[in-house]
């Protein structure tokens, strides 16, 4: 490992450090509640500030990892290196890395930190000044961000297990954080029990994966063991992969593993719900993409049992999430169910990516255009970066929607959809912002959600017509589901704009909520303006990423 590469995980290191500082600030402030430190530098403002710094660092890392990947892919072309990535961290003597901070991981990590930042802003609105244990709350949120941003890079079974559990355990605590609210406590307990069971099943799968691939924990070594030994076609290999996917499916709330989601989303404090629905899912998606594209792709995707299982689960997630969301009268529950469907859309992108890799026989990171052209000139350039673009869009539109829901819910004391009737009269800003977010979630142009769906379904169709009709079918199902979802999303818009609510005073939220909503609004509308640079960046991120770090000889 090059010591300079530690900088690649500097956002996570900084966040862990800052989390402890926030905790200490809280301890010091608690000594003198009225004057003292808290008066001049309140803990609840320190946390978003530190996270903003982490976000800047993360942005720098995205840039730097792209540059590094560019350098090493150039070296690969010149025959100086055996493989593309030199950005693996904590590389063992076998040349396998615990972490692979490729541009893909860097972008996901950036998304995780940006999400945490917005969640902190809406937490300020939700909890107000006098939150119990506020220092600990923000500390835990920052630790969760550490876990999410590192999980995106994890390329070793032990690291993956540790980071998924880290993220999960902090999430259980955050879900139960409103201690005196029995719904929050119950949300935490449900989330904990189902989560711990699913992670135990995942661990059982990992233990088999470890065994049958010759005692390796590194994903790249496991991938090698999987293809060479014929382990993939054995029953035990099947059990190993499917059990592992259970734990990852839980983090994503894919359909058979979704049962915790609605209750937890409704019961948890709303900022935590927002965190779970965006940051936690982004981390889970990063791990599942890495896992599926590295380990689970021997031979062709079409021949793999778990590929078809995932196709079915993706379909079910889309339909179930949308059809159940229609009937919800509580906006948090509606967003919870719709987020199950949203993950279904993203999974279409993941399956497309899985197909691209198996079809072309490359891993993420064909060195450059000339090499890629040899593999297939039809795989350029916007077929698999849909996952990243959709995640970016989803980050802003979903968090934005939650920000409005919190600001409005705090003033109205209820999350019932009926209360949104006539919101336009009471708060034009919130009503129009929420309308934009919901229209974007429905995937209607010209919003970020449309851009994401365009890339995901476009990519699926593009790969699908090369001989995988199921991807075309999935894209079609996705479009049908977008239309279904438009029904209940636009219903809220209709209520806000075209019905008369009770005449009540106008709603004015806190500055923090307004900042969060404004940021989300600008990016939800702005992403499509920057479609070209975003597309270029994500394409570069995907194509220069190597999911399993095999380092260059010089690196060892």
């Amino acid at each position, binding site marked *: 490992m090059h010591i300079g590469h530690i900088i690649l995980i500097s956002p996570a290191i900084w966040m862990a450090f800052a989390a402890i500082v926030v905790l200490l600030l809280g301890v010091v402030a608690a000594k003198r509640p009225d004057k003292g430190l808290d008066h001049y530098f309140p803990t609840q403002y320190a946390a978003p500030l530190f996270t903003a710094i982490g976000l800047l660092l993360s942005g720098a890392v995205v840039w730097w990892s792209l540059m590094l990947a560019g350098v090493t892919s150039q070296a690969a072309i010149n025959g100086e290196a055996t493989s593309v990535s030199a950005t693996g961290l904590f590389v063992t003597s076998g040349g396998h890395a615990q972490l692979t901070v490729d541009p893909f991981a860097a972008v996901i990590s950036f998304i995780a930190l940006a999400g945490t930042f917005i969640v902190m802003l809406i937490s300020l609105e939700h909890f107000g000044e006098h939150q119990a244990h506020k220092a600990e709350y923000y500390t835990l949120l920052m630790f969760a961000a550490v876990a999410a941003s590192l999980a995106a890079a994890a390329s070793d*079974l*032990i690291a993956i*297990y*540790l980071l998924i*559990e880290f993220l999960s*355990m902090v999430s*259980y*605590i955050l879900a*139960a954080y409103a*201690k*005196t609210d*029995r*719904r929050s*406590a*119950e949300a*935490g*307990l449900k989330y*904990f*029990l189902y989560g*711990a*069971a699913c992670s*135990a*099943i995942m*661990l*059982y799968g*990992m*233990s*088999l994966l*470890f*065994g*049958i691939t*010759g*005692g*390796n*924990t590194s994903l790249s070594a496991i991938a090698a063991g999987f293809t060479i030994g014929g382990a993939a076609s054995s029953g035990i290999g099947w059990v190993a992969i499917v059990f592992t996917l259970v734990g990852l499916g839980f983090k994503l709330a894919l359909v058979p593993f979704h049962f915790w989601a609605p*209750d937890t989303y*409704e*019961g948890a404090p709303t900022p935590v719900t927002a965190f779970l629905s965006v940051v936690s899912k982004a981390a889970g998606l990063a791990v599942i993409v890495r896992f599926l594209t590295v380990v689970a792709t021997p031979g062709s995707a079409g021949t793999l049992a778990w590929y078809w299982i995932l196709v079915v689960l993706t379909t079910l997630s889309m339909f179930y999430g949308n059809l159940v969301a229609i009937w919800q009268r509580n906006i948090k529950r509606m967003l919870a169910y719709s987020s199950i469907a949203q993950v279904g859309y993203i999974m279409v992108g993941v399956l497309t990516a899985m197909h691209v890799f198996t079809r072309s026989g490359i891993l993420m990171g064909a060195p450059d255009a000339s090499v890629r052209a040899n593999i297939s000139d039809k795989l350029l350039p916007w077929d698999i970066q849909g996952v990243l673009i959709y995640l970016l869009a989803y980050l802003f539109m979903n968090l934005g929607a939650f920000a409005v829901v919190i600001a409005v819910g705090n003033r109205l004391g209820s999350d019932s959809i009926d209360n949104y009737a006539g919101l336009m009269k009471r708060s034009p800003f919130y009503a129009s912002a929420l309308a934009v977010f919901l229209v974007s979630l429905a995937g209607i142009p010209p919003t970020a959600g449309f851009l994401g769906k365009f890339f995901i379904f476009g990519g699926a169709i593009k790969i699908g017509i090369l001989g995988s009709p199921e991807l075309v079918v999935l894209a079609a199902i996705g479009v049908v589901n977008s239309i279904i979802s438009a029904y209940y999303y636009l219903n809220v818009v209709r209520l806000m704009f075209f019905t008369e609510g009770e005449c009540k005073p106008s709603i004015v939220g806190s500055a923090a909520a307004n900042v969060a909503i404004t940021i989300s609004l600008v990016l939800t509308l702005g992403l499509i303006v920057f479609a070209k640079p975003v597309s270029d960046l994500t394409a570069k991120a995907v194509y220069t990423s190597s999911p399993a770090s095999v380092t260059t000889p010089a690196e060892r």
Partner: protein
Amino acid sequence: MSHSLAYGIPISWFLTVGAMLFCIGLFGMMVRRSAIGMLLSIELMLNAANINLVAFGSYLKLPSIAGQVFAIFVITLAAAEAAVGLAIVINIYRNEQHIDADKISVMKM
């Protein structure tokens, strides 16, 4: 020691015990009616995985210490997980102790 301890015991015996513990744990998850009972079942499943890890680690043709290392991390996380779960249970208990309710579920399943 001059020869292996588990002389005459093939790996499948250990894997069978692991599978048994895993399935007993699954059964417990399905029938246990209390949070702590479910937590106990989860511990069974974690131990099943650990037995697999250690068995593979020491039986493979190229033995790997990683099996034991993985198991140590699992034990560490199991301790942390139990702490989180029990904290949540104790908190629920405190919320509920003034209310004589048979069910605490206030949300529809």
